């Protein structure tokens, strides 16, 4: 818990949730994106449709899943389809509006690396890989990236380009908000209690700062109550 009465993760989840319009169809991963989309569903966007890549369409989990294929998702879904179908008919079929992506590295254009650190053939760190990211990044209208700010993650040059940044609309970090302006990610807001210098220092390239850089609204009491009521399965 920070001195503000909420954590950086809570600020990230709340800020991501606010950006989802009611009725949006969202491709969801595990962790913060799952938290954010379910928070939106329990606050201003009750008709948000959640699609997990395991093939659960319209999942309405009561307890947040630990994996993208938890039984809870299948039990609460409007439809459960095969994995080939979810990628071919639903993602490639352009039926999904928004997706969240994470990564190990991001560059100033929103390109992401989730494949390797170091050389591909002789990697320093072999990461899990892109999974659905290459097609998700180009197959939805709006890509939201959630990533903790550090010079190791926000790099001048990616070690490997896993997915392209063409549709990245926002990068939500633990320090602030970046949006593309004139083709380059630009700091447009910092979270409460964060100085503009902090995200700049935590970025491995010379981060542009918007002239009108603002401050994100802190989570409201209602948002925090709804967020904390979302319990992850198995946690008390």
């Amino acid at each position, binding site marked *: 818990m920070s001195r503000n009465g909420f954590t950086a993760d809570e600020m990230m989840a709340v800020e991501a949730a606010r950006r989802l319009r009611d009725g949006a169809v969202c491709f969801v991963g595990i962790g913060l994106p799952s938290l954010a989309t379910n928070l939106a569903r329990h606050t201003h966007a009750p008709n948000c449709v959640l699609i997990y890549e395991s093939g659960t369409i319209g999942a309405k989990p009561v307890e947040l899943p630990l994996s993208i294929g938890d039984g809870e998702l299948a039990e609460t879904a409007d439809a459960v389809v095969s994995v080939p179908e979810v990628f071919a008919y639903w993602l*490639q079929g352009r039926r999904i509006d928004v997706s969240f992506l994470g990564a190990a590295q991001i560059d100033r254009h929103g390109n992401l690396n989730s494949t390797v650190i170091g050389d591909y053939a002789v990697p320093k760190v072999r990461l899990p890989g*892109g999974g*659905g990211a290459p097609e998700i990044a180009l197959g939805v209208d709006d890509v939201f990236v959630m990533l903790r700010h550090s010079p190791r993650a926000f790099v001048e040059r990616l070690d490997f380009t896993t997915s392209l940044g063409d549709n990245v609309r926002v990068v939500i970090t633990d320090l602030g908000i970046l949006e593309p302006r004139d083709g380059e990610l630009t700091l447009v807001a910092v979270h409460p209690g964060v100085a503009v210098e902090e995200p700049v220092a935590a970025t491995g390239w010379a981060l542009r700062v918007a002239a009108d850089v603002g401050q994100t609204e802190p989570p409201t009491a209602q948002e925090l109550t709804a967020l904390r009521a979302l319990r992850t399965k198995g946690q008390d």
Partner: protein
Amino acid sequence: MILPLRDAVREHVHDGDVVALEGFTHLIPHAAGHEVIRQGRRDLTLIRMTPDIVYDQLIGMGCARKLVFSWGGNPGVGSLHRFRDAVEHGWPVPLELEEHSHAGMAAAYAAGAANLPFGVLRGYRGGDLPAHTRVATVTCPFTGEELAAVPAHRPDVGIVHAQQADRAGNVQLWGITGVQKETVLASTRSIVTVEEIVDELEPRPGSVVLPYWVVDAVCLAPHGAHPSYAHGYYDRDNDFYVAWEEISRDRDAFQAWMQKHVLATADSEEYLASLGARALA
């Protein structure tokens, strides 16, 4: 044909085979993977969209020469340390990678099931992956659009886990069914392990039914997906996924664990007993 898992693996899985053990978080065929390890298969080319713990075990025990995959991690936890050790340090043997995206892997399985030479999709655009994998471009003969082509998956053996089979060997699985139907239909031979063998399959909403004549071996393996889950039978053992992080991080700890729980046990029943009652909750 219903037969013991040991006999099915001996008969159908050979050194050097291309083998796909599929399951998308749900119904992962751990018991079958363990039997492949017990029988000491080598030089396998393993295919899986989401290689997780059972593939970490197969790789760490030196069963695999090559991995064809799209996401290799411990879901919700982090890295696969045996997979990383094989890729980063060649231990215990070097592991060749053929890396795809999920959409590409799914298209490759669907093409294999349909007896087509390649799958087609709007994918692999930009980025560095195309330079490091098997993907080509085809031009649509009707619109001129350029699309990605991925070679079909045609495993020698496809292995999946299901909830039920009947006595004739018809199989039914339900809940999240992933890419299992395509895996069985794309493969030359197939093994299905099941939670239960019943007199009659009761139709379930959204289920996948595999007729007995497309499955070569049906094997009874209760709790055979542990630590994954079987919808309607038992939950995912999330604690095990977390525990695997420590077990797999160190080569010696990994080998000791595999010796005790897999190599020194005869089958999935003994494996589960070796883990204690928690696994059966």
